[in-house]
């Protein structure tokens, strides 16, 4: 009985701490009902324009290429199930983590004898959207232990580093101020669970890198080059931070 007040004080102390760590909230929850309706109905979700293209690319044997994706991986519905939820993932032969886009590029180089598709091209967006769709509804679960750890920590450090003329870190907006407003828009927690996603502002499908570039330009920082290793570290940390949220690819966001 004498311990009860102490426990009560402890509980009261824990409440604000918990509120600070806040529940994970997908950007879906902050989108308008109209935007959510677009994402919910596959027949009107514009992301599916890319998904159908990706499905065709999966089967296609390009001129000069030894084999198609399907020749090795078979039916994507089974072989690619859960794959997108695990990326970025560590590649032992390269000694560094790869994003799903980079994995597809490596696969094309090593096994198909074809060049990697350029970043943000319709082909790479289509393929990653198609692969991502096979994991829809599954929780994000990147590996965070083992050789990938230093890259994850580098990503975490980057996430907390102030950048640009506005001298802002990702953490300031997306951890501390998430749920508040920037002009008229709600600041989301910045979870990468729907990429590649269709952004109404872009009027196109786009990758997580494109989104990060937008944020960096927004704080007036020099954006990373498209193939910068820092971006992989950051994507890895973001995926680990969002662990447990369901994959929504291809999501629709304002």
């Amino acid at each position: 009985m004498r311990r009860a007040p102490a426990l009560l004080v402890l509980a009261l102390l824990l409440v604000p701490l918990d509120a600070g760590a806040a529940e994970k909230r997908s950007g879906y929850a902050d989108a308008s009902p109209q935007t959510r309706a677009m994402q919910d109905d596959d027949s009107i979700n514009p992301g599916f324009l890319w998904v159908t293209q990706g499905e065709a690319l999966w089967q296609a044997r390009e001129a000069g290429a030894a084999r198609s994706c399907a020749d090795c991986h078979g039916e994507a519905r089974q072989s690619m199930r859960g794959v997108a939820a695990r990326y970025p993932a560590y590649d032992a032969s390269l000694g560094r983590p790869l994003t799903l886009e980079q994995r597809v590029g490596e696969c094309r180089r090593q096994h198909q004898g074809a060049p990697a598709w350029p970043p943000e091209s319709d082909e790479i967006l289509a393929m990653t959207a198609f692969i991502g769709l096979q994991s829809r509804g599954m929780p994000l679960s990147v590996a965070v232990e083992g050789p990938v750890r230093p890259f994850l920590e580098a990503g975490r450090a980057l996430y907390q580093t102030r950048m640009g003329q506005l001298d802002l870190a990702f953490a300031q907006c997306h951890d501390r101020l998430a749920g508040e407003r920037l002009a008229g828009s709600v600041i989301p927690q910045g979870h990468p669970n729907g990429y590649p996603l269709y952004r109404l502002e872009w009027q196109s499908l786009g990758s997580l890198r494109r989104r990060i570039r937008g944020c960096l330009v927004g704080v007036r920082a020099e954006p990373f080059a498209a193939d910068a290793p820092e971006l992989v570290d950051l994507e890895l940390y973001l995926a680990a931070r969002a662990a447990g949220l369901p994959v929504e690819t291809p999501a629709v966001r304002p």
Partner: protein
Amino acid sequence: MARVLMNVPAKARKGDIVELKILISHPMESGFRHDATGQPIPRHIIREFVCTWNDEEVVRVDLFPAISANPLLSFHALAEESGTIVMSWTDDRGERQSEGAAISVE
């Protein structure tokens, strides 16, 4: 060829009102924007859209600038007979494209 998602029910009962939908991948460039060098970007939009059911016109649409890229068109029609629904459209570069789907009406 633009990518297209056409959504037409495969079956309907006679007298039903069915929803016909199509999502067309198109830049719908308004003609009011300029590129990085200051040159105006020429207008490139879908101008005209027609949907027919067994060659009978269901809907005809004139489109104008300020319609977003990748437009979604959705409308309703009265199911009277089985056959083919054809949607076709023309854009500013004179490109014509058609998509068809079969529907059976019982």
